[in-house]
């Protein structure tokens, strides 16, 4: 074993195996905490979605399935490149690890870029919750759905506006927290890149790449649920 590897073996562990299992367990405990963190927002979504099923359907049709779908594909692809980066780190190939990390970084930034396009269009359409919020049905389908909503439920226009705003509050809270996680992930890749290029990772020690991979896949998981729950409601109305 090289002396370089010895330096990465913390003295309290019996072996590299035990060291890896311990850091991995720590990361999984953090992910458990993250599940509850996002879980609170999913619970808010669940409660208000069940109370306002029809309004949420109309509100959801404001979101772009195309951008949301492309972003889902971008994120899944980035999870693949991340899994490959961990694999290359396990094989001790620093340069290839760095290349896959860089691809993950580019895809992650692509995701955030597309998200910002979506956010700015919501801004232009006055769909940011707050004083300026004002929703208008913009195509025939939405006008028909809006009229039907008013006729069948007897909701006032003010009530419908307030529940539309509620949907967008939940949308921005959930996707915003998710995008923040993406940006933190991008920062962590920038920290890992030079370490990969210095060939610090090998079969015994690749814990930082492995744990960051777990984080990145978790962020992907959140989006896998956000996409259908936010974007794909009421596509059949």
């Amino acid at each position: 074993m090289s002396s370089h590897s010895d330096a990465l073996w913390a003295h309290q562990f019996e072996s590299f195996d035990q060291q890896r299992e311990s850091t991995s367990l720590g990361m999984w405990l953090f992910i458990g905490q993250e599940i509850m963190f996002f879980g609170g927002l999913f619970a808010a979504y669940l409660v208000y979605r069940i109370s306002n099923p029809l309004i949420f359907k109309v509100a959801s049709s404001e979101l772009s399935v195309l951008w949301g779908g492309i972003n889902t594909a971008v994120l899944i692809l980035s999870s693949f490149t991340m899994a490959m980066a961990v694999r290359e780190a396990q094989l001790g190939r620093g340069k290839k690890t760095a290349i896959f990390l860089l691809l993950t970084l580019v895809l992650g930034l692509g995701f955030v870029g597309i998200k910002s396009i979506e956010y700015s269009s919501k801004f232009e359409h006055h769909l940011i919750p707050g004083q300026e919020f004002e929703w208008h049905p913009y195509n025939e389908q939405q006008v028909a759905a809006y009229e039907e909503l008013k006729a069948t439920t007897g909701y006032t226009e003010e009530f419908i506006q307030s529940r539309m705003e509620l949907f967008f509050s939940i949308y921005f809270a959930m996707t915003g927290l998710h995008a923040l996680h993406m940006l933190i992930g991008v920062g962590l890749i920038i920290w890992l890149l030079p370490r990969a290029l210095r060939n610090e990772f090998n079969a015994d020690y690749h814990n930082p790449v492995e744990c960051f991979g777990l984080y990145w896949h978790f962020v992907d998981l959140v989006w896998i649920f956000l996409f259908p729950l936010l974007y794909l409601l009421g596509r059949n109305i």
Partner: protein
Amino acid sequence: MSSSSDSSHSLHIEPISTYLGILGALIVLTVVTVLVAYEDFGHLNDVVAVGLASTKATLVITFFMHARHATRAVKWTLALSIFFLVVMFVYILMDYYTRGLLDVFGK
């Protein structure tokens, strides 16, 4: 110190084909998710959407996150996290949707 071969016996390196297969499956399931959203199955739309998302999540956790080769402690951490997430959902929904079922004194 023990030899290198001895210390990495718990390391499983997946073949690239596994990761490519999972990537393909995730993309196909995403396309299916979008296509079924345009069909009207009533309340079943939500069941189908969450079912497909859970299938994708299972693939990511099992293969990309190496859960299938993880230690028992990690598997328990994962199982208990999901269990308590469900507990949180169930108790919150029990609260919200049983309010007003009973006449509350002084209401």
